[in-house]
């Protein structure tokens, strides 16, 4: 193993400081990703070394908040990967229909678009009344935004096209009210969503659920941490429950891959064996 260069050492120390001072543990996130985010913030705020940021991190609360926000990528969309939602309708809904009450955990829900997409889908399938969606993230800023359910008007076109491609049964405009700038998600979609702050790395098992969606979160974790989170998901799912990962995420390296059967391998949907 080659010696670490100074920047890498500084980054290790910065992550250590974030953990000790703020309790967020990024020490097992992918190095290339973390380095990119930290260097981005460094350039944005005009510092020359990561060490200079260390002082700010420890003594300047608003700088620390910005950095923490940078380290969590919140990019998301309504009905992202329409084929995934099509598969939810075709392959998962029939399973969910067999339960009198349904609990769904969206881990890493970011600003909520996925949870709202699911609420729309389940409404159309007649299941929303008996479902609770637990939407969690460790980024409080993102969660606060999610609760509001407000998105910019210029996204409507893209979301509408995603919704249609996903097999939507209605008009997307049925689900929001819009003014000149903003679209607001309908109140009845919010009813059965519970928003909560939960950290996949430092918090423990969340609830006993029928379905877990954790899409485009584990890609940022190193293998060992992925395995740890997979164990937590496994413990949280009921037997026969369904795990949904991002379209480029697999179970390839998970110690638990044999504990699941493929429900739709292309869409990365897995069913916990009985």
């Amino acid at each position: 193993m080659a010696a670490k260069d100074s920047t890498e050492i500084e980054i290790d120390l910065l992550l250590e400081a974030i953990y000790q001072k703020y309790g967020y543990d990024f020490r097992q996130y992918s190095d290339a990703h973390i380095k990119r985010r930290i260097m981005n913030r460094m350039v944005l705020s005009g510092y020359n070394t990561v060490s200079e940021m260390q002082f700010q991190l420890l003594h300047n609360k608003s700088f620390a908040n910005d950095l923490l926000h940078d380290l969590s990528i919140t990019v998301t969309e309504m009905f992202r990967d329409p084929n995934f939602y099509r598969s939810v309708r075709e392959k998962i809904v029939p399973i969910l229909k067999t339960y009198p009450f349904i609990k769904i955990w969206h881990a890493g829900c970011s600003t909520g678009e996925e949870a709202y997409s699911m609420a729309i889908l389940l409404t159309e399938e007649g299941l929303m009344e008996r479902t609770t969606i637990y939407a969690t993230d460790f980024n409080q800023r993102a969660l606060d935004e999610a609760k509001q359910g407000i998105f910019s008007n210029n996204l409507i076109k893209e979301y509408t096209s995603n919704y249609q491609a996903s097999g939507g049964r209605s008009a997307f405009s049925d689900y929001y009210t819009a003014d000149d700038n903003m679209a607001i998600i309908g109140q009845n979609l919010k009813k059965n969503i519970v928003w909560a702050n939960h950290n996949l790395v430092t918090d423990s098992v969340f609830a006993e659920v029928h379905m877990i969606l954790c899409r485009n979160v584990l890609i940022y974790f190193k293998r060992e941490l992925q395995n740890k989170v997979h164990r937590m998901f496994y413990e949280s799912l009921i037997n026969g429950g369904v795990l949904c990962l991002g379209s480029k995420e697999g179970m390839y390296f998970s110690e638990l891959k044999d504990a699941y059967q493929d429900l739709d391998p292309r869409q990365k949907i897995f069913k916990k064996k009985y």
Partner: protein
Amino acid sequence: MGYEAIVIGVSSGGLNALMKILPFLPENYPCPIVVVQHVSPRSDGYWIESMNRTCNLNVKEADEKEKIERGNIYMAPANYHLLVEKDKTFSLSTEARVNFARPSIDVLFGSAADAYGDGLIGLILTGSNSDGAIGLRKIKEEGGLTIVQDPETAESPSMPLYAISASSVDHILPLDEISGFLKGLV
């Protein structure tokens, strides 16, 4: 000369340009090759299959955490950034577009330069934007070898031109000569 890997960035006109290079590399080519080609976010990668049939090397989409190994040409998946880790594995990211692009050539090249240092070869091909210029400069700074397609031979010359103006690149080559040059290098 001890080169360990090649990264290629290409945008509009990309498929044609790649077809003039990749099929000519032999099965035992010693460097893995990683390609960012700008494609629509909804692309299902159908072109990767057809490319695989015409190449001697194995052409595949890069998987997250996959180990980067010789014998392969890896393509960045649509709508994700592709990064190289120091342990020569891939990471994916859904971070925002960089210069309107996801995957971004700069993101791949920057991380690969960190991982491979002077063992890296960077190549910029045709494209109508400026992605890749900063990444190629970074490869040069880390001691790697930088190559740009001669803009005269590019379907869209912007990307090569930006790359050439951002740093002093080592070689500017007409499209027809690139595969031969890459074969001679390693």
